[in-house]
């Protein structure tokens, strides 16, 4: 599903965020990516939806070489990759429901079908009752669940989450991770970056560890 081979990423100015990173993730796998802050986790995740391009090596997602993708092809790649960020990136000028339905605006679903899907996604993260609220009224954990609902509403085959639990208390964090687990159980490939090793060890899933830009 995802395969990195000999990937390096240098930022302008010479800073080397990733060095010779190789790994692959099978379809329907759930993998944790850990490492200290600054180890390169975010950079690695950004290579998957082509937010960043690798300086060397190849990143293959769903059989596509992401690094060589034309600019115009990137949106189609991203529609098949659900992204969840530490800072949620929700829009606070609209309701929870309107945030979740956003990715369906440029799909071919009828408005009725899109609304149905958005409600289904909100139901899966346990927030259907809050669909009319503004995200600002929600707790951090709830906002993160809205972000997850938005990431899965298009039914992507791959979910990528960057520190989704970083700002949450233990209960909220556990609830968010349980949701990822539930999606994984129905066949979605999941890659979660977190610096919290104790959380990772509880689930007994495969763990990739980054140290100073290399897979340890």
């Amino acid at each position: 599903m995802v395969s990195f081979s000999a990937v390096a990423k240098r930022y302008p100015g010479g800073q080397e965020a990733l060095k010779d990173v190789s790994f692959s993730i099978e379809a329907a796998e759930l993998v944790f990516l850990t490492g200290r802050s600054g180890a390169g986790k975010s950079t690695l995740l950004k290579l998957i939806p082509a937010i960043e391009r690798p300086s060397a090596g190849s990143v293959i997602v769903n059989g596509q070489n992401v690094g060589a993708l034309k600019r115009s092809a990137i949106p189609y790649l991203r529609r098949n990759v659900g992204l969840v960020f530490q800072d949620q990136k929700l829009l606070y000028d609209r309701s929870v429901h309107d945030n979740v339905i956003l990715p369906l605006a440029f799909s071919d679903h009828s408005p009725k079908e899109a609304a149905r899907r958005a409600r289904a996604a909100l139901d899966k993260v346990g927030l259907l009752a809050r669909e009319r609220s503004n995200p600002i009224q929600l707790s951090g954990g709830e906002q993160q669940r809205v972000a997850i609902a938005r990431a899965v509403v298009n039914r992507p085959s791959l979910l990528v989450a960057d520190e989704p639990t970083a700002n949450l208390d233990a209960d909220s964090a556990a609830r968010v991770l349980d949701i990822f687990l539930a999606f994984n159980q129905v066949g979605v490939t999941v890659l979660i970056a977190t610096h919290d090793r104790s959380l990772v060890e509880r689930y007994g899933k495969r763990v990739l560890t980054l140290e100073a830009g290399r897979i340890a």
Partner: protein
Amino acid sequence: MIGWLRQHRQALLLAMRRLSRTAGLLSAAVIGIALALPAGGYAVLESLRSVASRASFDPEISVFLPLGARRADAEALGARLRADPRVARMRFVPRDQALKELISVQGLSEMVAALGHNPLPDAFVLTARPDAHETLASDLRKLPGVSHVQADAAWARRLAALAALGRIALWLLAALLGAALIAVTFNTIRLQILTQRDEIEVSKLIGASDAFIRRPFYYLGLLQGLAGGAIALAIVALALALLNRELRPLAESYGSSFRFEFLPAAAAAAVCLMAGLLGWLGAHFSVTRHLRDIEPR
């Protein structure tokens, strides 16, 4: 296909909502006021032109004989003129008839009566064949037995030259204000992009194509231009109505029914369409320039 149409409808509705906010309406008003100037100027110029073309533009040449000329002299000159191939039409105006015509003009009869005698000479009034006007007039001046030749082409030429000048000035004005329209739209769209920054970034992250993100901005530029064009036409209509109300008594005192006409339908439609097109163009420049700067990090 249905999905594509739906996306366009959504973008259009979004653009309409954005336009209906104060900033959008103000920009449309600015565009409207700017465009009212050349559009109104065009309407005025066209009205004047239609009057000028209704007035006889076939310039006439009046050939006056000396005051004491005998009828035989006049007949000899008449025969000579009739033989000239450059003369298209001609008529003889004897001095008695000229005096009668003068007396019939209101307010002049007493003045003529006060003169005690007929001050008018015999005259020929003739029309030259096209292009021969100037040469004919100057040749006539050299003829013996002709005391004065009046060729009234000069004022017609001046009027035509003035009208041409007016038209060029209008086009220059329209071009300048068209550029201003593009600049206004460019800036409106820039501000709009800045306020939508978060939404644009999120849209890119969740897989919105560039076309999808650009679409509402193109529609906004187009609608703002169209609205500006419509406002310009409304301003022109209102201004002409006011002018015509004041003009009527004046025109009537000259026995004229002159009034400023609104732009012909085709010209009015062209004003709106052009404004819409320029708005679209301004949006295009702005979107091309500013959307690339917003990339998710």
